[in-house]
């Protein structure tokens, strides 16, 4: 369980970090290391150099404003848990992050690391996709901002180029009366999600669903929105019929993987159940 040898650099600026990545195509970025170090320990990857972001300034901030929530790439799960503003500024994010791994990992794991690692069962990529978030990357060619739905391309795969560093995740503004839920099933607390559903919608004055967003993690090869379910929900009031229809549509829509933990049929049934629970939870008004 020892990683292959690598060189280590901890540059003081983002520019220097990018220069190091450009100088060595086999180099990779490390922040908290909570996903990367196990990958190195199993020798699933053997980068020639680790470029540590720990000294790079400006990546550790959480900004809350009229444009939404901006999370710096080095913001840790613990920082999100401790930031009381997020209880109203983004309750869905807070709820989802409570499911990330265990206490010790939440003390070191970071926003940028989770996005870059792109585990299909990870909570933050799921929230980013569900919420239409934007991911900012900076590389040798400059900065670019990509919608989360276009960032993840498959298991552990993203459009990030080898010389690019994620600097920020921007979650759009969260209105006060939005209905939402996050439901995840894992075999034990902190385990990888077998499946998870993130869901939110606004309501018109007749309590009909407006602009629903439904995202799935775990039961897919990358986090994605369930458009068919969203279309079904849009414009209707949440009642027992709609909950049943939405759950069935979700189970049909997904293309779940089969692995050690669960087969295809089980994951479909699980997603149906989680959609049902999510809609019931969201339908109950709650304070944040």
């Amino acid at each position, binding site marked *: 369980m020892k990683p292959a*040898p690598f060189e280590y650099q901890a540059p003081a600026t983002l520019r220097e970090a990018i220069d190091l990545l450009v100088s060595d195509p086999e180099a990779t970025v490390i922040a908290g*290391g909570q996903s990367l170090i196990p990958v190195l*320990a199993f020798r699933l990857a053997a980068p020639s150099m680790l470029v*540590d972001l720990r000294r790079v300034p400006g990546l550790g901030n959480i900004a809350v404003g009229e444009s939404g929530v901006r999370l710096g790439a080095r913001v840790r799960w613990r920082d999100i848990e401790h930031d009381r503003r997020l209880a109203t500024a983004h309750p869905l994010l807070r709820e989802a992050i409570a499911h990330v*791994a265990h*206490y*010790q990992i939440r003390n*070191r794991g970071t926003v940028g690391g989770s996005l870059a690692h792109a585990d299909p069962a990870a909570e933050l990529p799921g929230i980013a996709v569900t919420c239409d978030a934007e991911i900012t990357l900076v590389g040798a060619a400059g900065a670019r901002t990509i919608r989360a739905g276009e960032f993840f391309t498959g298991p552990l795969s993203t459009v990030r180029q080898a010389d690019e560093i994620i600097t920020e995740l921007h979650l759009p503004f969260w209105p006060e009366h939005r209905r939402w839920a996050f439901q995840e099933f894992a075999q034990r*607390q902190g385990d990888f999600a077998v499946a998870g559903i993130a869901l939110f919608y606004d309501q018109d004055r007749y309590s009909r669903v407006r602009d629903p967003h439904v995202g799935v993690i775990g039961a897919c090869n990358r986090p994605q929105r369930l458009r068919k379910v969203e279309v079904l929900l849009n414009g209707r009031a949440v009642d027992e019929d709609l909950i049943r229809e939405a759950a069935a549509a979700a189970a049909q829509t997904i293309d779940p993987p089969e692995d050690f933990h669960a087969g295809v049929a089980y994951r479909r049934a699980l997603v149906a159940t989680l959609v049902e629970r999510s809609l019931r939870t969201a339908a109950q008004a709650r304070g944040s």
Partner: protein
Amino acid sequence: MMRVMFQLNGKPVEVEVEPRMHLADCLRDELRQTGTHLGCEHGVCGACTVIVDGAAVRSCLMLAVQAEGCTVVTVEGLSTDDALTPLQTAFRKHHALQCGFCTPGMLTTAHALLTEEPDADADRIRSALSGNLCRCTGYIPIVEAVLEARAAYQKTDKP
């Protein structure tokens, strides 16, 4: 090899390590602080938990070179003399250990938790300890010990 300097249990230490060496191996093999135990070496068992800059972290999921300038506390640093700390005393009283392999990780995790959250309830304690595996006790005595130790962590300046 790289030179790393950090504070270990209140004392400055300086050590030469390969970049790939994780903090747990550095503590055990280079600094001979063998209280930190290594179970799985990939972030699952929690036995190697140490406290870095006040937060409980897994020392197998942190490179020694990343500890540069940090303050590290291991199980050896929890008590300064031969006496047991209130947390350790509670572990003994409640039989919260049997073989003892997981105990350093349990103690460091619980110490970091109660230092930040002296009023943590049983659910919170279970949640924080959920990343620490114990094959002997069944966990109930551990949770009872941590609950009892809370009294020693209450902030004295509270009204």
